[in-house]
């Protein structure tokens, strides 16, 4: 049943389910057993989340039949180059070699300092030491600096989605340019693109945005489904975003761009972030709008689909592709 009144987010439920699954491996004390059953009965989604948590552990057991070492070795087909390097470092540490190897400084399991980046057209997911997840969009870079009391992230460039693990005592702070976004446990994106103001989009929970260098600018609290724009020399502005639009704005996680009545000029600009192949639009077509779901690093495919459906001409030249009105044939 979908329960629509005040409720926990699916992620919070998964988190709780994981906690229970982590404990139920041992025999629960009677009072805990009771609390567990109350929690299960409170919402059918709890049952589903707990079933999945147990399934994850069961999958671990199944894979473990191959021996613990098979799970400790670096995987045979890593997803990304830089992750592979990280995996190797961590893998060798686990094998009993020097722990403080190279740039990966592991003070304790919960302190962490590392950088992650993506190339143009690449998308990457990273699990941080506290269980928070970061999804990096194309051409983006973050520095992670975890201390005992703060989880600090510096967004150097690009865009990232943060799914923050809840921890009241250790705020999660993302800095982008002169703007700071502070969260406790929530899900939001921060975008820092050249010649554009910092943009923050909140998907779940609440975040607080402030500019430490501008003391007179008071902090702004941002609720779920709201976007904030922080231009360098104007106050932070906020506006609500429809839930549907939020999921469209996050289509990049799937390697997609979702457009709903977006002008061709705007669409071309968005594609430019994901590929070196540019799309140029003839001036008379710039305001023509398109709707649809496209592969973000395939600008040619997009241009071809637009050309076919709008009956336009598509030229391929050295720098990219160009869309214009079809020439009248003699």
């Amino acid at each position: 049943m979908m329960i629509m009144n005040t409720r926990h987010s699916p992620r919070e439920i998964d988190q709780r389910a994981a906690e229970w699954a982590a404990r139920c491996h041992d025999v629960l004390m009677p009072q805990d057993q009771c609390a567990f059953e109350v929690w299960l009965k409170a919402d059918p989604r709890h049952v589903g989340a707990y079933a999945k948590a147990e399934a994850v552990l069961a999958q671990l057991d199944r894979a473990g039949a191959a021996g613990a070492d098979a799970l400790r070795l670096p995987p045979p087909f890593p997803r990304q180059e830089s992750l592979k390097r990280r995996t190797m470092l961590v893998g060798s540490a686990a094998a009993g070699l020097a722990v403080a190897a190279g740039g990966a400084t592991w003070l304790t399991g919960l302190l962490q300092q590392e950088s992650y980046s993506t190339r143009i057209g690449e998308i990457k997911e990273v699990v941080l030491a506290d269980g928070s997840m970061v999804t990096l969009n194309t051409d983006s870079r973050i520095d992670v600096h975890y201390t005992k009391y703060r989880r600090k992230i510096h967004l150097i460039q690009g865009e990232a989605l943060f799914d923050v693990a809840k921890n009241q005592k250790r705020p999660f702070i993302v800095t982008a340019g002169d703007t700071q976004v502070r969260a406790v446990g929530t899900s939001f994106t921060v975008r820092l693109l050249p010649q554009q103001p910092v943009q923050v989009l909140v998907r779940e929970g609440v975040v607080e945005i402030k500019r430490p260098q501008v003391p007179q600018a008071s902090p702004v609290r941002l609720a779920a489904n709201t976007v904030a724009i922080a231009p360098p020399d104007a106050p932070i502005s906020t506006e609500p975003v429809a839930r549907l639009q939020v999921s469209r704005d996050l289509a990049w996680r799937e390697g997609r761009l979702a457009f709903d009545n977006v002008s061709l000029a705007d669409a071309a600009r968005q594609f430019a972030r994901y590929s070196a192949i540019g799309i140029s639009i003839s001036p008379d077509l710039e305001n023509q709008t398109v709707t649809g779901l496209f592969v973000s690093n395939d600008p040619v495919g997009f241009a071809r689909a637009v050309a076919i459906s709008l009956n336009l001409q598509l030229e391929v030249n050295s720098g990219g592709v160009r869309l214009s009105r079809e020439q009248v044939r003699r």
Partner: protein
Amino acid sequence: MGIDFQEKARWLARNVLPYESILRSRLRRMFLHGMEVDDIIQEMYARIVSQPALEAIRYPRQYAFQTATAIVIDHVRRSRVVSITAVGSLDQLEVAALDASPEQQLEFREDIAEVAQLLALLPERTREVLIMRRVEGLSQQETANKLSISEKTVEKHMAQGVAALMALFGRGGKSSSHPSKPKRADDDHEYKTLPSGD
């Protein structure tokens, strides 16, 4: 709650968990009004785990996809605003269920590789705790001693590890680790442009 979760978890791990990400991407593509994909997935697990006799289900993957379809239909019927897009795109889920041919059934070996791959994404300490506790079968206390951390911290790492794996199985999972599989190629047919305005 008379559900034996541990007993059913193996069935879910084998038959549902590896396909969750495919199902999610299908659902996400439907842009369902007023429904979160996360909610549908949790409810799907809830409905399946409440089934008394899982072993009797002959085509488990189809069953999972059909369960998700039923949840979407229930919701569309219950909500006043009937979303034509939702109803119209339901067959996308059916298609997904049909292509569950035997050759796409994952090999056990691939499952191991996937688990290893996802584990590699976790922080080292968390991964080590998961492996010691579940695979090597050490008790919480033994794990704590071996790693020189408190039992409370072991429990925390366990919970974090399970939560991270839950998210990873749902998001990355199968589809992104096997980009050459045919299910990727057929995606191309679904990118459509609809000229709007003029």
